[in-house]
């Protein structure tokens, strides 16, 4: 493997508090502080003038659909989509078919990752058997098989008692518990945010309160048990306030926001376009602004995509019948730059932190830094380049994106994993 020499990049490494124009060197799959003159001669040189070089992006919330739903996505195609989006590490959710609630299934996923993935992928396991919310999954065996967190994502453990025991039990292994916060009894048949838009469209509403209740429940259980609960895709204004207060109190919770919840609102649903249907749903402008405020003041720790592929024919249905979820990996960086940096004046380094060091920290991954000695996972992007996103020509197996056909600003040019270029100039290279 040749050494890599990225020259004249704006190097942004929030972990090392670094933001300067300079050169970045990699050898033997690691970041190095310099190369010898001889090594420089042999190194593959990438002119990164005008580009940002940052740690490879980290997404701790993606659905790769393998095993069992490989018509939507596979570990191979999901990894390619991730690489094209600048991600070098992602964490995949266990709501596959079968769900990942046994060591055997985790092993199957890990085998496929080793065989087919061009980036680093880390599995999670279920909290409950069959993701049915009734009995604890073999969390210890899952941990031994290599999961980095447990979650029933897509679903939410409704029993407070069972969630309490899951927290206590997972704490023994210091495994984070990721929770999709939704009170099911309040969201029967719900397909979009409850509010004036759902009233006008005649669609069943999913009230903020159904998220707020479980967010509060989780803050209480985290405090009571000492377990680390990570709150997934926060969408509601009041949830942000609950998290803010709980964190002040020292409760061990972390939380994520998605690019779609900071970019879009339920007003986008006027034409019943199922590419805007996801769970939790797009909410109101007030919610959107509070989520951005939560990211600004650190109440919400990170960005995560909830990349959720579905085929065209599954999404091409009556709104009520279409499955929840949209793609996120290939558009996350551009959308985040647009909303946070350009519209809301976040510092670029801070947004990169939300996408690299911080998510890695939440699940204790050895990633998200450009420090010498770290794995050479790097994302090179042009923060200003405009491009038209064609979801059908993208790297995901599916194309269910609300940004299909739109002009986005900020484009990933090169993605490097362990010192190897895996994506460059619009192509997967490995």
């Amino acid at each position, binding site marked *: 493997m040749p050494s890599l020499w990225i020259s004249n990049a704006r190097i942004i490494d929030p972990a090392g508090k670094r933001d300067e124009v300079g050169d970045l060197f990699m050898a033997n799959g690691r970041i190095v502080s310099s190369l010898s003159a001889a090594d420089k001669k042999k190194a593959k040189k990438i002119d990164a003038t005008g580009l940002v070089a940052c740690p490879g992006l980290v997404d701790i919330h993606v659905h790769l659909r393998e095993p069992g739903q490989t018509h939507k996505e596979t570990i191979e195609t999901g990894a390619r989509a991730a690489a094209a989006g600048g991600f070098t590490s992602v964490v995949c959710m266990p709501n596959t078919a079968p769900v990942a609630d046994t060591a055997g299934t985790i092993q199957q996923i890990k085998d496929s990752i080793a065989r087919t993935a061009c980036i680093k992928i880390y599995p999670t396991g279920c909290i409950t058997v069959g993701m049915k919310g009734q009995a604890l999954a073999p969390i210890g065996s899952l941990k031994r098989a290599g999961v980095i967190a447990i979650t029933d994502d897509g679903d939410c453990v409704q029993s407070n008692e069972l969630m309490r025991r899951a927290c206590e039990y997972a704490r023994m292994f210091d495994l984070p518990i990721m929770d999709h916060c939704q009170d099911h009894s309040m969201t029967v048949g719900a397909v979009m945010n409850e*509010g*004036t838009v759902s*009233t*006008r469209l*005649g669609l069943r509403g999913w009230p903020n309160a159904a998220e707020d209740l479980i967010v509060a429940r989780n803050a209480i259980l985290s405090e009571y048990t000492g377990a680390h609960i990570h709150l997934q895709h926060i969408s509601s204004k009041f949830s942000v306030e609950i998290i803010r207060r709980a964190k002040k109190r020292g409760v061990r919770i972390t939380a994520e926001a998605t690019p779609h919840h900071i970019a879009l609102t339920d007003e986008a649903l006027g*034409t019943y376009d199922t590419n805007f249907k996801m769970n939790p749903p797009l909410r109101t402008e007030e919610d959107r602004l509070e989520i951005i405020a939560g990211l600004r003041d650190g109440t919400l720790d990170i960005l995560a995509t909830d990349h959720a592929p579905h085929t065209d024919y599954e999404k*091409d*249905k*009556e709104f009520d*019948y279409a499955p929840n979820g949209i793609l996120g990996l290939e558009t996350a960086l551009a959308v985040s730059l647009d909303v946070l940096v350009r519209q809301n004046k976040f510092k670029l380094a801070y947004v990169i932190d939300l996408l690299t060091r911080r998510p890695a920290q939440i699940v204790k991954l050895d990633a998200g830094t450009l420090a010498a000695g770290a794995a050479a996972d790097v994302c090179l992007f042009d923060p200003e380049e405009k491009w038209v996103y064609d979801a059908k020509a993208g790297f995901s197996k599916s194309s269910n994106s609300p940004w299909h056909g739109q002009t986005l600003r900020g484009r990933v040019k090169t993605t490097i994993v362990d010192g190897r270029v895996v994506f460059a100039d619009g192509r997967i290279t490995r």
Partner: protein
Amino acid sequence: MPWTRRHLLTIEELSVEEIHQIHATASAFKKILGRSVKKVPALRGKTIVNLFLEPSTRTRMAFDMAAKRLSADVISLDGNSSSTTKGETLRDTAQNIEALQADMIVIRHSAAGSPLYLSNILGIPVINAGDGAHEHPTQGLLDTFTMREHLGSLKGRKVVILGDILFSRVARSNIHALTKLGANVTIVGPSTLVPGWFNALGVTVSHDLRSALADAEVVMLLRIQHERQTSGMFPSLGEYTSLFGLNKTRAGWLDPKAIIMHPGPINRGVEIDSELADGNRSVILEQVTNGIAIRMAVLYLCAGGQPEQVVSTE
């Protein structure tokens, strides 16, 4: 202004002028309904498919009747007999209907937005006969048509809609039609079934029957669905009736000339007392008859007819 719309999907998207055009056309067709020969050749040679994926009696019969009065051939398909029970998608079902050379499709579906979805797929006109809790445009048109027959202009008139508003497409279509025509609309009922979100549609939301009914010139009742009770939307039908049922005393709060409407089917003794439903202020059966004229107008216009040509088609 010529009629240019090919689909009728919602009242929300109609202009006031278009509502007037439909009403005027219905008015002309209504005269035909009073004749001994009730048929005109306007849609002779055209085939209309009624795709009713949710149960319906009145609306389906009225569309059937309307199409036949216009000399169209009609085929009706319901949810149980169509291939949707075998898992065929709505897209495939509709494309097959189009391939069978239908000229127009009338759809009733439990999923909101499905008529719009079809209109984006098909090259033939799509008429919404009710989509989930979204809209039921021909009902809103026939209701406002009936009101205008009794009241003349609806500008500044007080209209009350009473009952299960939350899940009602009839309420939404009437709200859009009435606010476009300048009426003052109050919706009233238990707070669980009449949420404040409706304020955004330009109506007054009330949970006090007396003040809501005071001086109203129209009261429109909506069917209370029994299953709402088991889902905890209100305690019992008895309590509903005692708080919001329309009886003779309460009808006395209305304007003396007020009319009483109901899109059907009626729960006698629940949302309305029998004697009022059958009384001389009730226009419930006129609504049914007007339903034919309105649907004739809608089918005729969306098939390419022009309002002023109705007379010449006779």
